[in-house]
């Protein structure tokens, strides 16, 4: 992707090169995951692994249909299965595709200290550029969804790229292409938000899911990946989707006020000692020696 299509860069001093380029983006790209029509078939898991050229792993049985307990540096998306009793007494087997949410206000980018290791394009995709990554794992701390995963061999962090390479040439992400039931949709945020809201409304009006809604958490400014859930009041039931994700307070503090206070303190300290020297100068030995005598 070209430089002018970047709207935020991690660890970067000064403005982003393309910051004042005018662009029609309708809110950027958006992937809708309609959990109510997901059948947990894992075509998306496999498509992602194959598109990114990763190998298949050895896994072990864990009393669930879920392929593995968590995403990995080379396994970007994972269907989380959860047997759940809804409030109205009905039973559900919830299947949620878990991957990077591509937040509008990404915690990973905020936390990252390495210049250019994480970029956010004008289309909203948040991409890791491993050549600039220093492997400090600040992004792991900054993400409210526990997404970035560290490769201990190469000391780089990886996550879903929303197939930025495919999107760049006008293709849909690999997972979208593979989904057999059309549970995944791709388009502009504006269009997809409307599609998702319509679907949620349809669920509320025509099915037993009166609490259906769209998950587009404003605590991170909204996300380029949104869910339609049967029960928007209980996202945690869907394999631990955070109800109100925000960049952790301490991360915001550390990257915000604390930074300026610290800079001020250090700068102030240096100024302080310069002023002291100008005012008082060094301690003079000779005077004392003379006095002693």
């Amino acid at each position, binding site marked *: 992707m070209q430089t002018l299509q970047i709207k935020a860069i991690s660890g970067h001093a000064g403005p982003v090169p393309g910051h004042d380029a005018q662009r029609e983006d309708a809110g950027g790209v958006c992937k809708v995951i309609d959990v*109510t*029509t*997901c*059948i*947990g*078939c*894992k*075509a998306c*898991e*496999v498509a992602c*692994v194959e598109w990114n050229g990763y*190998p*298949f*792993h*050895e*896994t*072990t*049985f*864990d*009393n*669930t*249909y879920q*392929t593995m307990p968590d995403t990995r540096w080379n396994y970007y998306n994972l269907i989380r299965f959860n*047997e759940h009793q809804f409030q109205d007494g009905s*039973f*559900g*087997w*919830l*299947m949620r595709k878990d991957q990077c949410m591509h937040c509008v206000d990404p915690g990973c980018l905020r936390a990252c200290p390495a210049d250019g290791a994480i970029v956010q394009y004008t289309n909203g995709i948040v991409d890791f550029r491993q050549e600039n990554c220093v492997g400090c794992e600040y992004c792991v701390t900054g993400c409210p969804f526990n997404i970035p995963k560290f490769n201990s061999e190469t000391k780089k962090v990886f996550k879903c790229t929303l197939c930025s390479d495919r999107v760049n040439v006008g293709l849909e992400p690999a997972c979208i292409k593979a989904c*057999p*039931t*059309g*549970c995944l949709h791709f388009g502009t945020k504006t269009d997809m938000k409307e599609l998702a809201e319509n*679907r949620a409304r*349809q669920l509320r009006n*025509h*099915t*037993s899911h009166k609490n259906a809604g769209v998950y587009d958490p404003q605590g991170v400014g909204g996300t380029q990946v949104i869910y339609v859930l049967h029960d928007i009041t209980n996202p945690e039931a869907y394999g631990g989707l955070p109800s109100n994700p925000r960049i952790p307070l301490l991360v915001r503090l550390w990257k915000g006020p604390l930074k300026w206070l610290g800079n001020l303190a250090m700068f102030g300290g240096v100024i302080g000692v310069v002023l002291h020297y100008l005012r008082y100068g060094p301690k003079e030995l000779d005077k004392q020696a003379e006095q002693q005598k």
Partner: protein
Amino acid sequence: MTNGWIDIKNTDMMLIMGGNPAECHPCGFKWPIEAKRQRNAKMIVVDPRFTRTAATADMFLQIRAGADIAFLGGFIKYALDNNRINKEYLVHFTNAPFIIKQGFKLPEDGLYSGFDAATQAYDKSTWNYEEGANVTGKPAAADSAATLSAKGAAQGRGGEGQGDQAQGPVGAKAIDSRTPATLPAKVAYDLSLEHPRCVYQLLKKHYSRYTPEMVARITGIPKDDFLKAAELFTSIRKDGDLKKAGTIIYAVGWTQHSFGTQIIRTAAMLQLMLGNVGRAGGGVNALRGHSNIQGATDMAGVFDILPGYLKMPNVADVDLSTYLKRTTPTTSKPSEWDSLNYWSNTPKFAVSFLKAMYGDSATKANDFAFHYLPKIDRKYSWAEIWDDMYRGIVKGLVTFGMNGVMIGPNSQKNIEALKKADWLVVGEIYPDETSEFWKSPGITPEMMKDIKTVVYRLPCAGFAEKDGTFVNSARWLQWKDIALPPPGQAKVDQEILARVFLKVRELYKKEGGKFPDPILNTAWNYTDPQNPSLAEVAKEINGRALADIADTKTGETIRAGQQLPAFAWLRDDGSTLCGNWLYSGSWTEAGAMIRRRGTEDPSGLGIYPNWAWSWPANRRVLYNRASCDVSGKPWDPERRQVWWNDTQQRWVGNDVPDIKVDSPPKDHMGPFIMNAEGVGRIFGPLAAFADGPFPEFYEPIESPITNPLHPNQSTNPVVKKFDSAIDKYGTTDQGFNIVCTTYRLTEHYHYWTKNNPMNVELVPEPFVEMPVELANEMGLKGGEKVKVSSARGHYIAKAMVTRRIKPMIVDGKTTYQIGIPIHWGYRGIQEDRGKTALNPANLLSPAVIDPNAYTPEFKGFLVKLERV
């Protein structure tokens, strides 16, 4: 399927039962999802466990495995009691108004009239229509009391009690059982449906016993839940609504029982009553379990048919005309109605088939070489083959892409059978359990020395390395090209078969033998006889003219050597050749219809008439004349499949009309053109079914309870239970009190994906799904090993403790069900790593088969569980 995959999006109501399409047909499941999204269609899922399909359903009911007929029978009763039927459809498009002859008895005691305990078979002559005419409005003839009820019949036999099934009711003795009974040409019928012996009244009486209480008792589904489901499914006909359409979708959850055929029958009857067959978004829809299993059955990969579902000749068919007389139905209907009876063209299909088989050697003079065809003298189904091998009758087996040991049933029997065989040829793409049966767990090196079977392993081509056609559940023939050639020495199937055949023919030529003629005279006129091009074979299957033929009505002619455009051109005089009449039209002079990929769908009904080619004659929805009322107007003008065009005086539509195109509605030609009656069969007469004209609920052969409907005849009386030394059956007295079912996962496909790292990553190890309550009782935690035993063998795997299978109350007793995915054996990635117990799931299943389709009872047998 009577309908198609894409057509499912047109439905308003889906009953998905005996199938788990979200799991096993994820791509096809797109269409039920579309129906929900686009039409707010409702989905009811009924299954022994809460499946991936259930996760998207509007209503889920957990049913005891094998209790499906009770459930569907309950639906039929509900529909009848609450007038949730399409009356006009029922009267005019089914045999509901037909009168059944006297002497027929319903099976209140579990047996229909005509059962012979000695032969364990039925004399079906009473299962027949009464000869006659329109008796609507006329009072019913005075029937003798004895024929109206089982009780009456018992009294008529001099009070021998209900236990004696040997004799039929009064009047049965008068039937001459030597000549096979036939359907009467003219059938008595009552359009008011009030005659006590009309099919409708008998139907009502038969299912009157399937009350919600009885359904709850048998299925384990609480009565209120059952009623909610019945209300929902039949709501499409509430208050006289005839517009809505409902579909029933099923797979091997229905077929893999000793009464599987009758389960499907019950669903078909329900759909006929609701008027759903022939309509967009309706139908009776089987989801086939393999990419080309539809093709396999169409091309007669089963012993009792010839390609195109022609009947297999038997030893009584002494010549072609006898065979044709036996297998060509004559119409049987109300005389005022019309019936196309398309099977009346059997002679054309059969002779064209013989010409395809034997070419110039088949002539009018030699009965078109009919005597070359093998004649069956008994059943030779899958389970019979293995039983014969076990008994030493079958000496050798050639198996292509078919893992007999893993399939079972009763896998140990199959392994023992292979030990006794002289030779085994396995065509596969990797070493499998069958080709390594001699290494199966439990066989020591000493025992291996005693195994004399010679095993030949032929490396074959995988599906991407072959061209040809796949025929999907929607009956679409789709040609595929080779993606990459087979590796190394692997060969395509047709080359292997051709070379074997030609070598055998050579040997016959050289050495002679018993009746070499069929081998020597088989037509084999391919450009490369050692490796016939499948395009040539496909063209042969489509058929061509062998002489110039003309259509006398239109004047159209087809030259000798030209491909036939349709099966309507087939002749019985030897002037046409056709490998499978159903596929005629698939490869015409215009080219390979099966290669087409036209994406136009002008009607929006998902018909896509120019995408590939579906049999028959590119019709996408079968029996589509029934999508209109008697006058030829569609039941729902917004989903018009076909309709009668009065100006043109023909049937037209978005789909190809499945009726004689110029037969006006006033002639009352029945939409079910493949039935002799022309109408759908609510009542399956005579030899239509081995076990009864109406489905009756019978327990699986291994069942936790006695059949509450008739405890003295708990199971299907005509079901075949193999009884060799290695065929054992378990009862609750022996401690087998848990109901077991077997099934498949999305992430694996039968027995070969255990060799693929991708699938193995997604689901690495075998497991047994069991209820939390059962696990707690046994002190078992998820991931701990459990041993499942049936009377035949045992299976060890890790427990998956889940809330998706709940305990049930069946006939007042708490009953547990467990489920086992079948995908692991003793050879594969994890198996070779020592990560599994190396046992196939089908060590557990019983060799018991459905008497109509011969499918084994892989689901719904008894086991017990122990910790390991």
